[in-house]
C-alpha cells in the first residue's frame, strides 16, 4: 500500500485517479463517481495556494497550447454538461462530441467544421490530462477536478454559462434534429 505522500505524487503526475470507494486515502480530496462504487482521488490545497501569486511576481505555469481555444472548449463543455446549475457541476451529464463541436463552432461564429473538430480534439486531450474532462469515444463529460470548485468559483462559472445559454440551446437543438 502506497504512503499518502506517494498517492499525492501519483495524482500530481498522472492526474486524478479512480479507485474503489473503500480505498480512499486520508488527506486527499475525493469526488464520488455517479455509481458510488468508485471515488476519484484529488489534490486538496488550501485556499491561497493557487495561481494568484504567480502573476504578482511575473512568473507563469507551463503554458497551455492554444490557451484561448482550450479555455473556450472548457467553457462549452461546462455549459453543456452542467445540467442543474442549482447544484454543483460534478458529475454532470455526458455530451455528444458532435454537439460539442457544434457549440464550439457557434461560439467562434461558425466557420469550418473540420477545423473546429481538430481544435476541439486537441483541447480535449489537454483538458483530459489535467482531469478537467473525461473522454469516451463518442461522448465527453466533466472531469472530477470540477468537484473542487468553491462556491465563489461557481458564482462566476454560472455567469459564464448564462452568457453561453443561447449557444447551448442552439447546439442541443441542432443535435436533436
Amino acid at each position, binding site marked *: 500500500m502506497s504512503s499518502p*505522500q*506517494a498517492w*499525492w*505524487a*501519483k495524482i*500530481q503526475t498522472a492526474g486524478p485517479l479512480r479507485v474503489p470507494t473503500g480505498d480512499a486515502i486520508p488527506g486527499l480530496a475525493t469526488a464520488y463517481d455517479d455509481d458510488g462504487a468508485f471515488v476519484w482521488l484529488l489534490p486538496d490545497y488550501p485556499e491561497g495556494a493557487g495561481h494568484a*501569486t*504567480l502573476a504578482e511576481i511575473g512568473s507563469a505555469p*507551463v503554458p497551455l497550447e492554444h490557451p484561448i481555444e482550450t479555455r473556450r472548449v472548457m467553457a462549452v463543455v461546462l455549459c453543456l454538461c452542467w445540467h442543474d446549475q442549482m447544484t454543483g457541476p460534478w458529475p454532470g451529464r455526458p455530451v455528444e462530441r458532435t454537439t460539442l463541436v457544434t457549440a464550439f463552432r457557434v461560439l467562434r461564429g461558425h466557420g469550418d467544421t473540420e477545423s473546429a473538430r481538430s481544435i476541439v480534439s486537441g483541447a480535449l486531450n489537454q483538458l483530459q490530462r489535467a482531469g478537467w474532462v473525461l473522454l469516451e469515444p463518442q461522448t465527453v463529460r466533466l472531469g472530477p477536478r470540477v468537484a473542487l470548485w468553491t462556491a465563489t468559483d461557481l458564482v462566476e462559472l454560472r455567469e459564464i454559462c448564462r452568457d453561453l445559454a443561447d449557444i447551448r440551446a442552439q447546439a442541443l437543438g441542432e443535435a436533436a434534429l
Partner: protein
Amino acid sequence: MTHLESHLAQLGDRQRAEVLAAFGAVRLSADPIIEASLPGLRDITLRRVVDRLLAQTGRTLVKVDAGRWTAGYTDEVVDELEAEGWQPLPEIDRALLVAVLVHSVAVPRSQGRLVGDTWMSLHPTSLAELNRMLIGPGERKAALRRLRAAGLVKIAAKGAGYLPGPQLQRLTPRARRRLEEELVMAAAPDSPLAAVIRDRRAPVSQQGDPNS
C-alpha cells in the same frame, strides 16, 4: 478544512498567506522562483514551514542555484514509486525525452560545452535527430505534444529543435546524479564508468564480484 491546513494552525494570518503564496508558487511555476520575491522563501523560518507542507504532498524544496527555488519529489517518494513500478509516461514519450537529454545535455557535457550537473541546456536536439528514431511521425508528434504540455521538453528558439523543459529543474541532487548514471549505462554500458556505477548499485554481497 484541508489536511494541509493543520500544518498552518500556528501561524498568524499574514504568515499563513506568505507561506501559502510560496507553497503555491514553487509548485505551479514552470521556472524556479527568486527567493527575494516572496517572504515565504526569503524568511528561513517560513521556508521551513513551506518545506513541511510540501513534504505532506511528497515534495521538497529544491535549490536550483543561488537564490532560486522550486519543488521536486522527495528521494523517498521516488524510491517508493519506483519499487511499485509507477510510470505515468508512455514508453514513446520516455524514448523521446531520453533522446533530447542525450543530445542536448549528455553529449555537450561530455564535450565540455556544458558544465555542472544541470539538465537544462541551450544545445537543441534537432528534429532530424528525433526523426531518425523508429517512431511513426503521428506517434512522435503526439508524444512531443504531451512532453511539451508536461514541461519536460520545450521548443528551441527559431524552431531549431527541442530542449529539455523547465520541469527538469525540479530534480533533487540525487535524482540529477541518478539520471546521469542511467544515461551513462544506456549510452556506454561497457565503459569503465558504467562498471563503477553498476558496482556501486549492486548489493554489498555482490560488489567487486567480476561475475555479477
